[in-house]
């Protein structure tokens, strides 16, 4: 057992850190720092910068353009990206569907879709949830009916992040009925400009527009846009989930947020003490979240570098997202009454009218509100707990930490 990085890994971390300090678009980092919202164009420039080093398709096999990292290297990269304050890679294309196309797509599909993803020429959206199918995703109802070489799609997808700027959407659709509800589901890709596709914005609780409702009204898409076999969509979706189950961990982000909170709390005046860092309640709560983050990191590393146990993976979804929410609560406490202002954050410099020391409060309050979603999306906490229980009850023994991993 060894906690330290090897010299080679340390060198890699240095390289990545240098990249973000100099080669990565600094104006994007500045916008994130001040809490401005990024445009599609900002995202594209950021992605292209990563791709210039071959660091964009982080979960792909090397033959299709992936960087060929070990789990530890990938972890180091994500740490450094988040430590630098860069926006997380939008997962829909490169993290979610890309690896599925690599694994299950036809050569033509790979040829058609992968290069556009790698070069950020195409943005993608994910069409999974439906208004009546959230936690119970397998009950989804959007239908795909064969008509010659096409499917005709009818139904509604919801919570589709970025659908308003996407070029493609990959959807779980029902291609047959009658069997177990997990069966008869297929994975079909649709260009967003296909006739009959309509995107309606959903304004989130923090006032931003990131989510959408996408309705499909007799939308025609070629059967050639189906990935893999008909009726196997549920299987592919689960492969996807399994490979990215720790994508929400965001340990680097947590650590840099906590550092920023500690720094800021050392400057901001307190109520009973000179500074916030000396306020007993705040200091202990901060310490307690710091401890949680450092412990969760070990669990994440154990899961990434060993044989991951399914119950542990679900447990970490819960732990990581709850820790992220606790961090937003610390920010909220620092914000005090400055949690109130609700300002547009689309233009750089939006915050100039606020007292400098309290500018952080506006985006951080928005985070407090928006991050409530973390424990809802991607398998709500309650659903994860059902999954964990089933695994614990089935196993008849707890997962054996502390055994050699085969």
């Amino acid at each position, binding site marked *: 057992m060894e906690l330290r990085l090897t010299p080679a890994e340390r060198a890699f971390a240095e390289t990545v850190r240098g990249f973000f300090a100099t080669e990565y678009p600094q104006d994007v980092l500045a916008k994130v720092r001040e809490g401005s919202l990024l445009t599609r164009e900002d995202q594209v420039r950021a992605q292209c910068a990563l791709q210039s080093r071959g660091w964009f398709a982080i979960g792909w096999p090397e033959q299709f353009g992936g960087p060929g990292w070990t789990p530890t290297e990938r972890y180091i990269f994500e740490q450094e990206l988040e430590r630098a304050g860069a926006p997380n890679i939008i997962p829909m294309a490169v993290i979610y569907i890309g690896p599925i196309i690599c694994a299950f797509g036809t050569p033509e599909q790979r040829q058609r879709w992968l290069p556009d993803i790698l070069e950020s020429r195409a943005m993608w959206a994910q069409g999974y949830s439906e208004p009546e199918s959230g936690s119970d995703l397998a009950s989804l109802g959007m239908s795909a009916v064969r008509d010659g070489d096409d499917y005709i799609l009818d139904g509604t997808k919801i919570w589709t992040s970025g659908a308003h700027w996407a070029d493609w959407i990959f959807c779980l659709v029902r291609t047959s009925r009658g069997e177990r509800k997990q069966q008869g589901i297929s994975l079909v890709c649709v260009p967003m400009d296909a006739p009959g596709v309509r995107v309606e914005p959903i304004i989130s609780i923090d006032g931003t527009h990131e989510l959408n409702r996408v309705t499909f009204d007799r939308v025609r898409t070629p059967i050639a846009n189906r990935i893999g076999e008909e009726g196997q969509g549920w299987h592919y979706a689960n492969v996807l989930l399994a490979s990215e189950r720790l994508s929400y961990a965001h340990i680097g982000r947590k650590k840099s947020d906590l550092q920023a909170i500690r720094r800021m709390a050392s400057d901001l005046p307190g109520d009973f003490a000179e500074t916030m860092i000396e306020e007993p309640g705040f200091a202990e709560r901060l310490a307690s979240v710091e401890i949680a983050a450092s412990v969760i990191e070990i669990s994440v590393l154990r899961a990434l570098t060993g044989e991951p146990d399914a119950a542990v993976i679900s447990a970490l979804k819960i732990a990581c997202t709850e820790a992220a929410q606790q961090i937003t609560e610390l920010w909220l406490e620092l914000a005090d009454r400055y949690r109130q202002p*609700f300002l547009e954050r689309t233009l750089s410099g939006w915050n100039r009218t606020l007292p400098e020391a309290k500018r952080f409060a506006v985006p951080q309050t928005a985070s407090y509100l928006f991050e*409530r979603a973390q424990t809802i999306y991607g398998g709500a906490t309650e659903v994860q707990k059902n999954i964990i229980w089933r695994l614990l009850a089935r196993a008849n023994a707890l997962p054996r930490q502390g055994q050699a991993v085969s």
Partner: protein
Amino acid sequence: MDFTFSDEQVQLRSSLQSYLAERNGFERRVKISRSEPGWSADLWRGLAEELGIIGAALPESVGGIGGGPVETMIIMEELGASLVLEPYFETAVVAAGLLQAGGREAELEAIVRGDARYAFAWAEPEGRYRYHHVGTRAVRDGSGWRLSGMKAVVGAAPWATHLLVSARTGGDIRDRDGISLFLVDPAACGVAMRGYPTIDGRRAADIRFDDVQVDATALVGTEGTSLSLIEKVGDVAIAALGAEALGVMRRLVQDTIDYTRQRRQFGQPISSFQALQHRMVDMFMKLELATSAVYLATLSLDADATERAKAASAAKVSVGQALRFIGQNAVQLHGGMGMTDELPVGHYFKRATVIEGELGSTDYHLARYAELSKAAA
């Protein structure tokens, strides 16, 4: 001991309830909130004239009904349940409380009539929750004063016809002595107000006072000794805001119960899952205890200063913890729909988030309670 409401109080609640059901429905309120100026003069007039409740807790000598903290509690709870935007709290509770102590009958009469709307500018950017963190200065100028300084996140200020401003006429920042109260016209020369919407659909402003001249009558109360009054009214305000929070939470709990009974997943209403049932029970329990905490604060307002302050802090802590737990879980149990601005739940959650951070956070009042207990022991 007695925890029952009088018939008049029951009547007050039910007429306010019906009035708001009709005049401040969810969609209408959202529309008002998004309009310019963001509040409804009609509704305000209605509260003053049709219902006549702006003076519910004010003496008959200024046109009020002569009620007390219990009437305020009832009204605030119902305003909370309906997410009323209009500045009843700022005007009829906070400002009226300050003005009453200063014997300002004319101003009180205008409030009761619905002609005046107030904002109390006490907080400063670096001051957090301390009333005595006052960097704004008032210097004598002939028989009047000149005010300079910066006030932060002044709720309802963009709507106010009058500002009450705490300013230092002596001493240094965070001294307890030397704090005075002034009545300032928001349109006066030198007042620069930068208003903005707030996350709960209201308006607030940061206000800069740049050598603002006011005459001798602007001084409310006596010079340099207003802190204890402000703190007392602060506890009154905590009781009232706590009552508003009860209304907000009652709605959050009820909406969540209703939503989970109607929302189906895995072939059954999600309310059939015991883990969700118990969560809602926990929400209900927090609400029940927060209710008692607000009673405690409300019925302790005439006790001695330490007991009053301890009761107020106990209430703010209980209400604050309940707001967070109930608000977060209401959103969680509404699932994705809780994350949108389409259903009421998100709006109530945002109001909950603001109340939690007003007049001292939960952390603040826990520490205040501990200090008061240590001092009293």
